[in-house]
Structures are given as C-alpha cells and as structure tokens.
C-alpha cells in the first residue's frame, strides 16, 4: 500500500489551492447579498449614552442600522464561556455579561455597538463612520496586575476587583515545605507575552435567512461548525439547531481563534432575519487585531527547589492571567486545566502547587491560541531549569536528564497521568542532530567574527487529544470532547468518510484518506473526506488542541472496524467460507489460502442490491462511530536552538534549530513535519518578534502588520526535524498529535539560547534586537539597570 500509513503522500486538497479554486467564506456570494460593517468603540472603557444613526440611515443604499437594544430585545442571548472553573473557596467564576452588540457599556477598543447593513461593503463602512455614538468615558486598565490593584476601574459589576476566579491545584503546604528545605532555590518572574493568532484568512461570515422555511444558513470561518451551531442555537437563541445550517468551507488557518463564536456571526444571522437579505461581513486586518481572541498574557512568579544532587524537590507557581474584557468560549480552561496541569513538564517532581487568578481588563478577550496554556507552562519550566543549571553551575542538559521521568505510566502531582515517553531518547536524538559536541568550536569561531553564539534547550511535554469527556466534565467543561465519523462504502466500492474534525490547513483530506486506504488496501483516489457542513456531517466537535489525529482518526478507525466486520460477513456468506478466513487485500475480499475472492466493489454492490445477504442483515454498507478518548495523549520532545548575537546591535539570528519530537505513530511524515515547521515559526515569533501592545489605558497600539511583527521568511531558519517514537497505548492508531508542539517547545529554546549567548538571564519575550541590546548593556553596567 504505497499511500497508506507512514507514506509521504502529496496532499489531495492542494490542487484547488494552487490553482486559485479554493472556496473560502469571503469567496461566497449569495443572491440578494448585503454587507455588514460594525460601529466599534474607540474607547477602552465607556458608558454608551446615546446612538444617533439618522445620518447613516439617510444615506442612499443603507438598508438598516441595528443596535444592541434591538438585539437583546429580540431575545438574542449573551455570549458565554463554556467551561465552569471554580475558585479555591468553592465559589463559581464571575462571568460578566457579553452582548453581541454592547448595550450600556463598552469594555475594549473594538467592542461592537451597532451594525450597518448596506448594499456594498464600501457603503456599509462609510455609513458606520456616520453613526454618532455618545460615550461617557471611563478609566480603562490593560494589564492584569494593574487590574487587580486596589482602586482599579471596575469592569464588570459582578466581578469585584476584576477577579474572575482564584484557583489552585496541588498541595501548597507540602510544596512550600519542600522548597524551604531545598539545598538550592531558583526564583523566576516571567511574562508570557500577549499574541494575536493571525491566521492569514481574516474571519468572515455570510448569513442567510429563508423566511419561507424559517431556516438559516451560515457560512463562516470556523474550526468547529457543529459547536458553532450548538452554541448559536442553545445559548444565543438565534435559531433552533434543526433550522440552522453552519458551513465552514475552506478555512485559511485557525490556530485557535476560529474556535469561538463571535459577536459578528451572531449579528449577521440576526440581521439577515431583520432585513430579509443575505448579510456578509469580512474582517479587515485591523478588525482582526481588535476582535480575534488573543493568546497568552500571563505574569508568573515561581520558585523551584533542588536537593544537593540537583533533583527537583518542589515547584511553586503564582500566575495572573489576563482574560481581556469578556470571558471567551474556552478562556477559563486555558490558564487552569491546560496550563497548571502541565507544570510537571518532563520531570519527576513530588510537590507542585500553582495558584491562578483570572482577571478582567479592558482588552480584547483572551482564549486558546496554538498550544493554549501549555506554551505558558513549558516556557516557565524550561526557563526555570535553564536558570537553575546556570546558578548551580551544572550543564543544562545534565540537569534535565537527572530529573527526567523514565518509567510509565507516571502520575504527576497536578492530575495528569503520562502514558508513554522516552525523554532521554528525545534529547539524545536532538543533541546528535544539533551536533552539540561541536558547539564549543562553533562558539569560538563565532567569537572570532565578533558574534556571541549561544545554545538553548527546551524539553517540552503537552497534553493533547482532548479529551475524555467524563474527565473534562468533572472539571467543568460544558461539552464532551469525543469525535465522530461515518464511513460510507458506496455501491461501486468508493468511500466517503464524514468526519466531525475540520481541516483548515492540517491536510485531513489526505491523512484521513491514508488510514482508510491502508485499512482496506484501496487506492487513495477512491476515498473522499467530507467535513465542515452540519447538513452533511453528523455532530462533531471540531479541530483544536491537536485532537484530530488522536481523537478524530480514532473515530474513523472505530467506524472502519464495523465496516470491516460487515464486509467479512457478506463475503463469508457469498463465498461460503468462515468469517475468520476472510482477508481484505489488493482490492479484493478473499478466502485466505484459496482462489475464492470477490472484488471490493462487488461486496459494496452486494450490500446495496441486498439480493444475497446473510439472514437478518440490513442492506447497505455505512457505519458510524463516536470515539471518546480514555486519556489525554502526551507528545513530548527536545528542541535545541542555536543563535548568534551581534553584541553591538543586539541583532540575533537563529543559525540552527533542531526539533526531536515523539508524536507516537505517524501517518504522513511530510504533513507532520510541516506542522512542526509552522509551530516552531510561531514559537520563534513569540520569542523574538510578536507582541500585542496596549497602552496602560487599553488603547491598542499594534493594529496592523506595520506594528505587529509577524515572522517572515528571513526571520526564521530551515529546521532540522527528528522523530523518536513511543507508541501511544491509549488509541487504536498509537498516535499523540503534532499540531501545537512547535509553538510550545520553541520559545524557551530560543530564549535559553539568547541568554546563553549574552550571559545574562534578564530578558523577556519578545527578544527583539532592542531588548537583546538593552539586556547586554544592563549586564555590562549593573547600575544602569536600576
């Protein structure tokens, strides 16, 4: 099977993209289509005291100007966070009301106040400018620590002191005692910089209300169209589920920020009902910076204690997480169950405690962005290990090896049970590929050119394949995190797979087809993957958290098990043989050891003609399955960055980047490597370039690509990728997931390398040339830093 599991199959979906025939939401044009433009708050925090839309309404071609009073008056519900996290005192989280169009108060720059529906996009935008909103300005606050301080502006009435929750995990007393008795304690304060996900396709929605059927259709840029339909229906009361079709066609990247259901989709659906027109909205890039959920933005203080031999005895962490102005869909889980539960890293640590305070600020809502909590955990641990090694005069690789978990399953003190891994093996592979042995010579050679060369490690672990439904339910999740599949064998033997996963760049149309081609020994051309349309596909949970392989493909395997069983029954009946003797290979269904065989397509045809089926068997050959994982999966790896810094300018170049990942079994290595490349580039972006900047009052400074530094081709190197495989014991394909690893593992490797090069630890992300230069100068003249 040349196109089966393990083959580097070129992607089936590429043809439409390389010929300009992809169909993204903004490419869709409905009959009778009008355009929406949003009137957005220029203030971070203000009361809305009046909206005068008369000038806009008088403009030729303006169809309607609608506001939040009308929206809530029509019964459209508030936007919710779907994961209930409970504070350590037992109180529920303080979720403030979020209306798709603000009614009384705006809480961040970009908060939508009204919407204009007009005949053209240009006219809609012009008319939005003409809507006169009267504001009473209030003091805003952008930073989480400032929002917690006494006297800070109060953002939501039901969240005193802007505190959403005060949550903890682990044993504080035991951890404090272990650190108090440690031979060495390393203390660290780190900021995990706020990022904007920036998929290249801006968000877009086209909503159509069909009055004759009382039915809505929404084309939208979603990673999870069924979840969107459920939430739009059950919580926002836009339409009952059976009267709402959500289609996520080709989607140009997601990285988390296309999981959530935003004010714009809700408003477009409602406006299409109000106006009797199809309503299209497409974000421009500035709107994307102002409205797409941001990621990260943690401030953490941590202590790690070591015994005299360098073994970690305790790890205590205090984190403040900036949530922005409202609680986005999964926001509560990111700095808790996706972050603090990973604070054991790859290390055997008996005592861990983490306290997390979630805080409202007058900024864009913050939610999951590629990695979601796990990059923040990894960055903290790996900066800690590196710093401790330097303080204790140990080799940073040796310190890690001394503390690696080396037997599985391993239960951490922060509720995770790692199922399999080979952390030392990952490091061996990375060190060999990066030629760590030759580093000293390279460093000396670079010094001769006036450059500072540094090497940095990161040994990351993450929890993917989210997640066992009962487990996440017990932790407050409002949904189950299983996945669904249906495998349809057609009468001619070709196969359609309907998957609840959604591909927005991950290559599912190829990878998923490979496991089917492999299982039934069929040409990959005969297999079609169908996704992204709630009218075509059964309910599915969608794609995020590196779950489509471990969970989505496991559902396909489960459905294929059922198909195979039926195929064997039919063939055994027709060929007059025992089921156990039937084998499927080479496009045939055969009796092993004989020349008796049917073509695969003949079995399909037999199932549908139903002329000669076993007694009592239903016609047809179509099987569905829901797969609920039994555990998280635990991809892990070792990354090594090597950098050269120009001490005169701070300009830093990554001269070598090596990734050795353990993703379990791999279906398509080409696609998996591509996921690592992209993830690492985003991680390098976080480490060296990217930062959403607000001033302290909540004015957004980085509103375009002129201000927000996206990684470009000459900011990143070519990457060296290695794989070290331990099979995941908990799913049928033995796979772990690969989508987020690069973004999780890369940032600490880069910062550890730069700080190694410049010889000072005092450097925060993003390590721009200016930041690096400043750190070098501060280290030279200690007084200047004070």
């Amino acid at each position, binding site marked *: 099977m040349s196109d089966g599991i393990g083959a580097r199959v070129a*992607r089936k*979906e590429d043809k439409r993209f*390389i010929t300009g025939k992809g169909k993204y939401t903004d490419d869709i044009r409905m009959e009778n289509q009008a355009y929406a433009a949003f009137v957005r708050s220029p203030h971070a925090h203000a009361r809305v005291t009046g909206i005068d839309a008369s000038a806009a309404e008088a403009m030729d071609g303006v169809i309607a100007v609608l506001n939040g009073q009308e929206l809530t008056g029509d019964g459209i519900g508030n936007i919710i966070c779907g994961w209930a996290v409970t504070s350590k005192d037992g109180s529920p989280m303080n979720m403030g009301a979020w209306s798709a169009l603000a009614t009384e108060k705006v809480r961040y720059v970009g908060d939508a106040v009204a919407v204009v529906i007009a005949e053209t996009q240009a006219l809609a935008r012009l008319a939005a400018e003409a809507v006169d909103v009267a504001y009473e300005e209030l003091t805003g606050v952008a930073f989480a620590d400032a929002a917690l301080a006494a006297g800070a502006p109060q953002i939501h009435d039901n969240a005193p002191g802007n505190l959403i929750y005060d949550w903890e995990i682990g044993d504080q007393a035991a951890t404090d005692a272990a650190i108090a008795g440690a031979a060495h304690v390393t203390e660290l304060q780190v900021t995990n910089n706020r990022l904007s996900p920036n998929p*290249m396709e801006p968000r877009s929605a086209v909503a159509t209300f069909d009055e004759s059927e009382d039915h809505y259709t929404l084309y939208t840029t979603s990673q999870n169209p069924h979840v969107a339909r459920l939430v739009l229906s059950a919580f926002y009361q836009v339409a009952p589920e059976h009267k709402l079709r959500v289609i996520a066609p080709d989607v*140009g990247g997601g990285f988390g920020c296309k999981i959530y259901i935003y004010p714009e989709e809700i408003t477009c659906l409602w406006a299409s009902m109000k106006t009797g027109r199809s309503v299209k909205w497409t974000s421009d890039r500035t709107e994307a910076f102002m409205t797409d959920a941001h990621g990260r933005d943690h401030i953490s203080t941590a202590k790690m204690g070591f015994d005299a031999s360098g073994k970690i005895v305790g790890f205590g962490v205090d984190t403040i997480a900036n949530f922005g102005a409202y609680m986005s869909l999964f926001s509560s889980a990111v700095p808790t169950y996706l972050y603090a539960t990973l604070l054991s890293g790859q290390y055997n640590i008996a005592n861990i405690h983490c306290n997390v305070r979630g805080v409202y600020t007058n900024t864009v809502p913050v939610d999951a962005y590629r990695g979601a909590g796990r990059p923040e955990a990894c960055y903290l641990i790996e900066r800690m290990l590196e710093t401790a090694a330097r303080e204790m005069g140990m080799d940073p690789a040796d310190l890690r090896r001394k503390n690696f978990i080396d037997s599985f399953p391993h239960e951490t003190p922060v509720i995770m049970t790692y199922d399999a891994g080979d952390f030392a093996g990952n490091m061996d592979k990375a060190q060999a590929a990066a030629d760590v042995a030759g580093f000293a010579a390279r460093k000396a050679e670079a010094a001769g050119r006036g450059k500072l060369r540094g090497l940095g490690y990161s040994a990351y672990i993450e929890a993917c394949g989210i997640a066992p439904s009962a487990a996440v339910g017990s932790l407050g999740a409002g949904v189950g995190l299983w996945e669904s599949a249906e495998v349809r064998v057609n009468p001619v033997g070709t196969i359609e797979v309907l998957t609840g996963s959604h591909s927005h760049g991950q290559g599912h149309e190829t990878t998923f087809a490979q496991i089917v081609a492999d299982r039934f020994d069929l040409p990959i051309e005969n297999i079609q993957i169908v996704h992204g349309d709630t009218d075509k596909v059964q309910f599915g949970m969608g794609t995020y958290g590196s779950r489509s392989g471990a969970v989505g493909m496991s559902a396909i395997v489960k459905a294929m098990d059922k198909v195979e069983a039926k195929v064997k029954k039919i063939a055994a009946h027709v060929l007059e043989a025992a089921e156990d003797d039937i084998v499927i290979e080479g496009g045939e269904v055969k009796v092993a050891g004989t020349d008796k065989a049917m073509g695969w397509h003949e079995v399909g045809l037999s199932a549908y003609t139903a002329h000669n089926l076993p007694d009592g068997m239903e016609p047809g050959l179509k099987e569905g399955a829901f797969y609920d994982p039994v555990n998280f999966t635990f991809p892990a790896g070792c990354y090594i960055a090597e950098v050269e810094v120009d001490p005169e300018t701070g300009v830093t170049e990554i001269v070598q980047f090596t990734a050795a990942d353990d993703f379990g079994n791999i279906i398509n290595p080409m696609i998996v490597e591509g996921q690592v490349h*992209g993830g690492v580039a985003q991680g390098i972006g976080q480490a060296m370039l990217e930062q959403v900047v607000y001033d302290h009052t909540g004015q957004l400074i980085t509103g375009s690509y002129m201000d927000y530094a996206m990684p*470009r*081709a000459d900011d990143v190197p070519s990457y060296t990728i290695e794989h070290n495989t331990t099979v995941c014991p908990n799913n049928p394909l033995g796979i772990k997931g690969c989508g987020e690893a690069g973004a999780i593992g890369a940032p600490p490797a880069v910062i550890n390398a730069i700080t190694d090069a410049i010889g000072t630890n005092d450097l925060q992300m993003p390590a721009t040339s200016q930041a690096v230069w400043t750190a070098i100068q501060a280290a030279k003249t200690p007084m200047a830093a004070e």
Partner: protein
Amino acid sequence: MTDVTMVVNGKAVQRSIDDTTLLSEFLRENLRLTGTHVGCDTSQCGACVVHVNGRAIKSCTALAASLDGAEVTTIEGVANGKELHPMQRAFNVHHGLQCGFCTPGMIMAGIDMVNRYQASGQPLTEATIRHELEGNICRCTGYHNIVRAIEDAAQQMDGMSKAAE
C-alpha cells in the same frame, strides 16, 4: 465610474467601475476571480500578488482604473490548460502550503522572483529567496517548504527556458 479594459489571463475584459475600485476588488468582485486573496489592509501580507504587464504587484494597492490596457495574470491563469506551472507543482510536491490562503500570492511572487533572477543571471540562493519573500507572509508553513518549493521550481523553470533556447 470609469470604463476599464484589460487582458486578464489572456482574455479581454471590459467593465465600468467605481474610480476607487482596487485591482484586488476588480478581480474578486467584478471578474469573480477569487483566487487572489486579501489578508491585510497595509500592503504587507502579499496574499493579493498578481502579475501586471509581467511584473509582480500587490493588487490591493493598485487602482483598477489606473490600469486601463494592462495585461494581468492571476493564479487562475498560470497553468497551461490542465498542465500546472512548475511553481504550482513544486508547492504541491514539497508541501509548500497548508491552509492555502497565502498560496496564490506566494506562487505569483515565486514565479516573478525566479524570472527576475534568471533574466539577470544572478543565483537564487536560500538566503535570496528568504529575502525576496519579505513581502509575503505565511502563518502555517514556517516557510521551510515554501523555500524548498521555490528552489525546486527555479531549477525546473531554468531547464524549461534552456530547452526553449
């Protein structure tokens, strides 16, 4: 309104358009050639790159009315019938795309880059490819495979131009 005539992908087109219509809008909305994408508002991302009179430009930054008489090639026009352009093929073979949104601009920029370097006789190294891609942003691939695709396509395009001599 202004009457504009262009040759787009080898076909003469004529439309009456608003003076403020950008070339990207003209292609996407007036001609419904939606392969040309718009990913930013500041001429930074390059998803909208097309060829005008044989040179790569950002179609989001050109007024269609100013291009009367121009010859325009978009992503829909680079293949020779059913035969893909070597740059298109190379992006597929080397996995130079994931979500596909930046891809049309990358391919159009890549073709232009190879043509310019081959015309000038300058070598197209990895470093020059990375530098030349300064105006095209990709969020998915980390650029590694885009660079491999352009390197490979450059060799094939070189072979083609030599064979034609």
